[in-house]
């Protein structure tokens, strides 16, 4: 059995003697650059970027599916797609956009930013973090491989039983759905635990709950939503898988099952899922608007509590997706009332953002345009949501294009616009250069036009009776005009996305040809991630900052005059760290996350086609688990060992935090705290 071989340390040691710890089975990866640097990295920033890249790739896939749907519906009676193919395409469009685009993009932002915003060097469990990504990616590829292996799932993303049963959907598509979502669900559950532990345990000294940046707050709420809702869908998916692959009858009425069980399980997950998709973006916007209004977020505590309230109430409204299902008037009344009142905390957020920009000094960067666009567009989605909280009205609206319009105003007009804003905002943080503002504005305005032209008319179509998920319609139903408008809109959206991709490409190319060092804190921003230079150095912080304010970075740069207007007290260059620290211990790369993940889809293929495939998959998983547990999270040869007595006093060492132990060094770092006392200090 080979032992870990001696080699140059990955990081500089702190000078203590290195204890040989012959635990690994194979030599650990050491590369930090090139393709291997990406495949085996456990750095939360690289994992975040990988999540983002995968999300954008699937965004294009889901976008092509959307264009196919819109082309089919452009005119009545079109035969571009057969009914069968249309059903697969709209199913995969929904699954892709929800599970493979928005969720990983949220994971990208959370992975990259949350540790930076709380002043941590990495997440609590770095290898688990890498595992989450690879597990998601392989699950996503597994799901999409159904296209090549007999056709995609054709039951809709909601996949109601018994239409999802073997009798009614005999192709393998829905097996891919069940197993693919179980695999990506593992990724999200693991990630949720990891990020919750990180947020609770790894905050920098002084980073109290009431000083945490709003994005971190909202993603914390969302991780709890994931933690509690994913087990429910996982149970439902297992029951579905057992019904389809092993002949059980949980949803088969003829054998005593009940299809309504699926609906309840699905929506107990499915409704919190909506908030999972949108709350982090509320956080993103709450970060961007104050920066470009040069004013703090209006009502920070209200924004936190409304986010938490949405999270709690989000678990109590699921059956509003089932008002037409015949639950009986008592259940309908309860869920209808609960749904009406979930509008209140959401409304608070919209009004607080409006109050944040009111009286500000608004700079219309692309990031800010997207954020303000979100206020306007999400408001439309929120208001149409209130109209179907009224259960009798919902019996007219549900399963029509009015609902399609509603949730696209929430998920596109909310999540997606906010995420584009976030990308323009944090691009320099991640890559060290800004995206072009001019192209960005073209992107924004064309996207706004296309978006409203696509989804605005769907309100009318739905109210005029156009059902969802119909593969075509007739000329005498009065749907022709607005469908054509929506199709044109969809292609305009495609143009805006092409502009975005072009923007990314030219900026990347220019930066490669002529790398210009990014100015520190390029937006004159507020939260802690901007105390690190751009792009973020691998060790994040030279010294862990001591936090004493909400908007810590802003308060290090500005004091107040008597009128409450900001007065510069330090330049950005003075506030931002140099990024040149040495001797920082970091978690070491590992093969096992990607190897373990690679086994799971093989088991999936095994269950669907032939158990022979499951054998190599199972072996991979077992070997990877074995390798994983035998391998210390930080390579001993890289100069670290756990019982290092001076870690706590070693101001630059995150290792103590990475093991989840107490942060005892607050007092020692007081010199890092900012020294100016401010009047009228914010809450916290």
């Amino acid at each position, binding site marked *: 059995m080979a032992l870990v071989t001696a080699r140059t340390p990955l990081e500089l040691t702190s000078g203590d003697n290195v204890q040989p710890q012959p635990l690994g089975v194979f030599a650990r990866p050491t590369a930090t650059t090139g393709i291997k640097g990406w495949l085996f990295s456990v750095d939360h920033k690289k994992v975040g970027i990988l999540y983002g890249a995968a999300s954008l790739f699937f965004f294009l896939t889901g976008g092509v599916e959307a264009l196919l749907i819109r082309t089919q519906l452009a005119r009545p009676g079109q035969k571009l797609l057969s009914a069968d193919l249309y059903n697969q395409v709209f199913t995969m469009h929904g699954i892709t956009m929800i599970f493979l685009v928005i969720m990983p993009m949220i994971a990208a932002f959370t992975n990259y930013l949350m540790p930076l915003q709380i002043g941590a060097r990495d997440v609590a469990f770095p290898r688990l973090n890498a595992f989450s990504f690879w597990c998601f990616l392989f699950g996503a590829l597994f799901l999409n491989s159904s296209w090549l292996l007999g056709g995609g799932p054709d039951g809709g993303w909601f996949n109601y039983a018994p239409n999802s049963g073997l009798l009614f959907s005999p192709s393998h598509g829905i097996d891919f759905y069940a197993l693919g979502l179980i695999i990506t669900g593992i990724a999200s559950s693991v990630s949720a635990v990891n990020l919750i532990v990180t947020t609770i345990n790894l905050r920098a000294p002084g980073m109290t709950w009431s000083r945490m940046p709003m994005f971190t707050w909202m993603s914390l709420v969302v991780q709890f939503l994931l933690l509690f809702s994913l087990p429910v869908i996982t149970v439902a998916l297992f029951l579905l898988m057992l019904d389809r692959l092993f002949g059980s009858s949980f949803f088969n009425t003829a054998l005593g099952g009940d299809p309504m069980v699926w609906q309840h399980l699905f929506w107990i997950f499915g409704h919190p899922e909506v908030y999972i998709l949108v709350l982090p973006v509320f956080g993103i916007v709450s970060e961007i608007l104050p920066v470009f209004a040069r004013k*703090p977020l209006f009502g920070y505590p209200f924004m936190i509590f409304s986010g938490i309230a949405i999270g709690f109430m989000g678990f109590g409204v699921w059956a509003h997706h089932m008002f037409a299902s*015949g639950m009986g008037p008592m259940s309908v009344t309860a869920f209808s009332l609960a749904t009406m009142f979930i509008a209140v905390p959401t409304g608070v957020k919209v009004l607080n953002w409006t109050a944040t920009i009111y009286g500000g000094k608004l700079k219309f960067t692309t990031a800010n345009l997207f954020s303000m666009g979100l206020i306007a567009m999400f408001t439309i989605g929120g*208001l149409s949501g209130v109209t179907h909280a009224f259960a009798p009205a919902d019996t*007219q609206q549900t399963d029509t294009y009015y609902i399609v319009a509603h949730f696209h105003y929430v998920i596109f007009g909310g999540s997606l616009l906010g995420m584009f804003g976030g990308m323009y905002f944090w691009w320099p943080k991640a890559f060290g250069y800004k995206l072009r503002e001019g192209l960005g504005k073209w992107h924004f305005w064309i996207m706004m036009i296309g978006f409203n032209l696509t989804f605005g008319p769907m309100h009318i179509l739905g109210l005029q009776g156009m059902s969802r998920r119909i593969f075509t319609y007739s000329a005498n139903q009065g749907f022709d005009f607005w469908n054509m408008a929506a199709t044109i809109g969809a292609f305009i959206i495609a143009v805006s996305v092409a502009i975005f991709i072009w923007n990314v490409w030219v900026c990347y190319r220019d930066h490669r040809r002529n790398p210009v060092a990014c100015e520190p804190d390029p937006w004159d921003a507020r939260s802690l991630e901007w105390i690190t230079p751009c792009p973020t150095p691998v060790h994040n912080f030279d010294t862990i900052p001591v936090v004493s304010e909400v908007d810590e970075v802003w308060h290090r740069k500005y004091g107040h005059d008597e009128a409450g207007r900001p007065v510069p007290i330090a330049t950005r260059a003075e506030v931002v760290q140099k990024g040149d620290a040495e001797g920082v211990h970091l978690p070491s790369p590992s093969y096992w996350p990607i190897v373990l993940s690679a086994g799971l889809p093989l088991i999936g293929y095994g269950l669907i086609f032939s158990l022979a495939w499951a054998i190599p998959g199972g072996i991979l998983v077992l070997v990877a688990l074995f390798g994983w547990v035998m391998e210390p999270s930080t390579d001993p040869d890289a100069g670290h060992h756990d019982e290092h007595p001076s870690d706590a006093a070693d101001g630059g060492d995150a290792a103590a935090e990475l093991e989840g132990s107490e942060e005892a060094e607050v007092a020692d770092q007081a010199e890092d705290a900012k020294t100016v006392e401010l009047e009228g200090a914010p809450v916290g």
Partner: protein
Amino acid sequence: MMQARTRRSVARVVGGITTVVLFLSGCGALRDDKGRPLNTLSPKGPQAQRIDDLVRPVFIIAGIVFVFIHVAVVYIAIRYRARDEDPDPVQTHGNPRLEWGWTILPAMVLAILAVFNVQSIWQLEQRDSDAMKVTVVGQQWWWEFRYDTDDDGKPDIITAQQMVVPAGRQIDLQIRSNDVIHSFWIPMLNGKRDAVPGRTQPWSLEADKPGIYQGQCTEFCGLSHGYMRMEVKALSPADFDKWVENQLKGPVEPAADSLEAEGKALVVNRCLSCHQINGLDDKGESTGSDRPVEHYRGADHPLTAANAPNLTHLMSRNHFAGNMFDLYEPGSALKGVEPVGVPKIDNLQRWLQDPHAMKPMAADQNRGMPTLGLSAEEIRKVTSYLVTLK
């Protein structure tokens, strides 16, 4: 200067009012049902009207909030655009009183609306004492309607695609499904209710006036979901009684040795294994009664094509195959009771020739109409018999 400003604000007010008027008239136009047979905004019965009454103020309040937020965002964007000479803004951190205000105010508005909401939910569950019961059965991909005219617990009329009801009388629906979940929806008469296998779901509708009201299955039910439509034909009470009388009659018997008789022989031979013709069992033997058999072929088949539309009075309907294809030439569709239109025979012939070219189905999995492989001559005989089934 002052005048210019006044003029400008006058222009703005006028422009604003014009926009609002145009917007509202646009909304008014949406309520028009001409050319929009599924419009939810043109209620034609008390249930649909009740829903409309409930939601209209909600739309108006939502519209006001929409205008308020959008005007605010645009105003703020213009008014507070950064100009270099401006000082940085005062760092206000919030205003708890204001924030509690805009938490409580919407909650109160919603609380008031909630009263009407709850009222409507319960009222829509109530049934008139004289309501007429109709059993609705959804299956891939068409709707069946069963009437029990003599209250003996067995259906006396089984029809499909078109539910015929008396205008001005509440219909008490019992909605069921034979296979997957469907949803029964006639937008101008009421909202929708799912048809769930294993359950009987109560629902109701009522048409104020005679007329035809279109519907569409709205719960995704597999391959041909888009082609699963239905309609409600409301008749005056007198016409409705005539319709019932006609439906209770047995099938028309063709003259011996006619083309129709040959057609009937083919139908008995090829169609009765799935389709029912009242008075005949699936072997073509007489059942000794003009009433339909509820469980044709002995049992409720969970999904198989054994559940095919009853053909006894085929030509008393307007459309076939999920209410998708005309049985009568355009302009001669039936409005009243008397079947007087000109049959659109070529539609039926195409259907018998190759049903899958007209409607996506999975007959190889027993879901939908199979291709029978009839010769053109046979198809001519079959259709000549079918068009007599009035």
